[in-house]
């Protein structure tokens, strides 16, 4: 009984995270300004990382945790580069 509870909980969590990702995408499309889009991208990759962790719990594979770590690393680099670009108009000066 507790295992079907766990399966249902993971399913509900995945649906919630997918909804959260779609909210971020709506904000990214709607704008209104460039900094809103960068912020939405930041929220999007964090939600994607959480979704990967739930998939890892569901399939019982530790590989998904490493994929989540890589997403966190690359997302940080991307957001910092884009904020730098918004501030100065170029990434490396």
């Amino acid at each position, binding site marked *: 009984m507790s295992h079907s509870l766990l399966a249902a909980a993971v399913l509900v969590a995945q649906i919630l995270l997918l909804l959260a990702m779609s909210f971020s995408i709506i904000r990214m499309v709607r704008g209104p300004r460039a900094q809103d889009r960068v912020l939405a991208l*930041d929220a999007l990759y964090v939600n994607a990382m959480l979704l990967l962790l739930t998939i890892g719990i569901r399939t019982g594979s530790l590989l998904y945790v490493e994929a989540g770590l890589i997403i966190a690393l690359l997302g940080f680099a991307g957001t910092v580069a884009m904020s730098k670009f918004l501030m100065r108009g170029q990434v490396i000066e």
Partner: protein
Amino acid sequence: MSHLDALPPWAAILVAAFVLLGALLAFVGSLGLLRLKNFYQRVHAPTLGTTLGTFFMLAASITCFSVLHGRPIFYEILIGVFLTLTTPITLMLLVRAALYRDREEGSADVPQAPPHE
């Protein structure tokens, strides 16, 4: 659902509660990102997911894999440490950039720069 049957009931209930809490926090954070009125309010919302949401999800993952493998597995903590370190840096840079852009446009919604700048 074969490997999850190896979890004892207490661990299954704990993991289920952690996963639900983490996903709910991330969901509320993204809802705030969608619904709040201006950029400086919206910056605060997704941090709900990056701090406490990530914490609960990592706790669920650590509990699940430690019980499944029969030995403590802690390297999910790396994700937590990394996000805790990088989220403030990212948001400080982003808000600085947004403030700079708003001031350049002469927007009336943001305070003006102090005189020594």
